[in-house]
């Protein structure tokens, strides 16, 4: 039997507020343990939490940017469970009246467009961090240590419908959510810090069936690679179980990125077991159409719109536009390069080839690039004006990448890399090359037109790459 995977994601994103969701403690990452805590986030008796207005604003913006309906009446609820990272024994979250519902985002995989629906977006608080005395929970007989700095850091949980059917689609969806959250500037989305993490639900069903199979859940996936690996492993595992006549058990599984496998953790508690109840300490959030619209007006251009603009106004291919707008940093860098007056297609090529290659090799992001957008743009302008060839452009780029902080123009002048367009000077070199390469000349004259390539190469070499290749070609053809 052929099976189809059905995948849904719950993405947790930490919001980039200065303070926590219900108290004035800082949210900064990396502080010494238990120094960003107060009676409210420690869950001491008798305290009164107060909602951080910025959290509501960010959640509403996330809802608007993902085409959700904003609920004009929204409230918090208590989700009860016992775990030492949760000092109150409940997580303050939203249950039946979340801030936003019924959204959708578009993704593209292998040139095919798809829409993924969002069930809801709700606000909640993060839990603390457990440090185990052993390697795992189970071998930590000496106990565990808790740091409550992260307790109360604001999160939004973005719940998708089970609309995805492959690891690639799930990845494209999560990349789109990440891009949107970056563009609207509500989350840092640093996956390695746990800013953005996903719980994945995967089930299989026979192709053609519209009934959902039993699903398993994998929690806290915080890299795109782990997301794809976990889904692919789980699809394969479930398929084997089903083909052997077995049944999938509804359970939470943990993904071990080192071994690339998922392992059973515990069977899923029923939703009812959380005994949700309205949070009596937090009054409801009531919003008017005007407020919602004013948040909508504050939204910047979103990734899909930016991608279309690059295609329609600048004539870039859908692929190039997609790559350049996939992250806010890249889109801003590209826009800054264009501000220098550089040609859009050349700028796209340089960013996607030389710059991307160097960034990947150095494992840094584009906003950390030693070659800033302005200097790259000015270098591209020099190529467009014919001051340097693109070959010399690569040398200028390498020079800037390796720490030369001068402008492209100064580097070119200092190094004497200005392209020779003086026909007389090039003609001299061409004549010398023709004289020295009798065989290639003879081949060319005998009808082997390709032989001219070797001669062009010789001229370029003799000119140290500075001769204008087009002029060289013209002169060679003429003089031969």
């Amino acid at each position, binding site marked *: 039997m052929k099976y189809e995977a059905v995948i849904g994601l719950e993405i947790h994103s930490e919001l980039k507020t200065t303070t926590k969701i219900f108290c004035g403690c800082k949210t900064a990452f990396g502080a010494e343990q238990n120094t960003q805590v107060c009676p409210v986030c420690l869950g001491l008796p008798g305290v009164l939490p*107060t909602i951080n207005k910025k959290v509501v604003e960010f959640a509403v913006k996330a809802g608007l940017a993902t085409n959700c309906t904003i609920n004009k009446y929204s409230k918090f609820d208590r989700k009860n469970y016992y775990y030492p990272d949760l000092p109150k024994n409940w997580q303050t979250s939203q249950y039946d009246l979340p801030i936003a519902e019924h959204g959708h985002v578009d993704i593209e995989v292998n040139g095919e467009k798809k829409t993924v629906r969002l069930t809801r977006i709700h606000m909640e608080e993060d839990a603390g961090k457990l440090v185990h005395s052993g390697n795992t929970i189970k071998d930590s007989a000496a106990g565990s240590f808790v740091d409550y700095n992260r307790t109360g850091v604001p999160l939004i949980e973005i719940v998708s419908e089970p609309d995805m059917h492959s690891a690639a689609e799930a990845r494209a969806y999560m990349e789109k959510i990440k891009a949107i959250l970056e563009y609207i500037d509500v989350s840092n989305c640093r996956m390695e810090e746990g800013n953005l993490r996903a719980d994945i639900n995967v089930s299989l069903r026979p192709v053609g069936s519209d009934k959902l199979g039993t699903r398993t859940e994998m929690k806290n996936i915080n890299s795109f690679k782990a997301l794809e690996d976990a889904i692919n492993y789980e699809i394969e595992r479930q398929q084997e179980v089903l083909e052997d006549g077995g049944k999938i058990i509804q359970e939470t599984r943990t993904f071990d990125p080192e071994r690339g496998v998922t392992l059973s953790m515990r069977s899923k508690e029923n939703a009812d077991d959380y005994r949700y109840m309205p949070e009596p300490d937090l009054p409801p959030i009531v919003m008017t159409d005007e407020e919602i619209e004013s948040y909508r007006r504050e939204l910047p251009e979103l990734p899909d719109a930016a991608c279309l603009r690059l295609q329609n106004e600048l004539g870039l291919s859908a692929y190039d536009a997609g790559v350049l707008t996939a992250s806010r940093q890249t889109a801003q860098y590209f826009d800054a390069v264009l501000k220098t007056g550089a040609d859009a297609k050349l700028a796209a090529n340089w960013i996607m080839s030389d710059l991307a290659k160097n960034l990947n090799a150095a494992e840094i992001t584009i906003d950390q690039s030693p070659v800033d957008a302005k200097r790259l743009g000015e270098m591209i302008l020099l190529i467009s004006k014919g001051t340097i060839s693109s070959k010399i452009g690569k040398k200028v780029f390498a020079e800037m990448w390796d720490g030369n902080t001068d402008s492209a123009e100064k580097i070119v002048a200092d190094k004497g890399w200005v392209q020779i367009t003086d026909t007389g000077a090039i003609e001299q070199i061409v004549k010398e090359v023709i004289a020295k390469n009798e065989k290639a000349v003879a081949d060319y004259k005998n009808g082997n037109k390709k032989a001219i390539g070797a001669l062009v190469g010789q001229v370029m070499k003799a000119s140290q790459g500075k001769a204008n290749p087009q002029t060289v070609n013209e002169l060679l053809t003429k003089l031969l």
Partner: protein
Amino acid sequence: MKITKDDLANVAYLSRLALDDGEEENYIKDLNDIVAYVDKLSELDTDNIMPTTYALATENVFREDEVRPSLTQEEALSTAPDKENGYFKVPQVLAE
């Protein structure tokens, strides 16, 4: 709806309460009285009444995103039954 011994055991487990053997019958009776009371309320016609989600007439109580002083690590840990190296120390967390 009738509360059974199993329901009681489940609710007690979810609340991490240990019940003595002799207490069970009393709790089952109390819980059944509560359920009966709610059943009585359910007789009212509430079709055209918005559900109450918050008992007071307040809404939109917010604070600005401004830092307020936190406790020191020492203060935070001062009431902890067990601590080590600036952390709250808890007994082994068992996976269920």
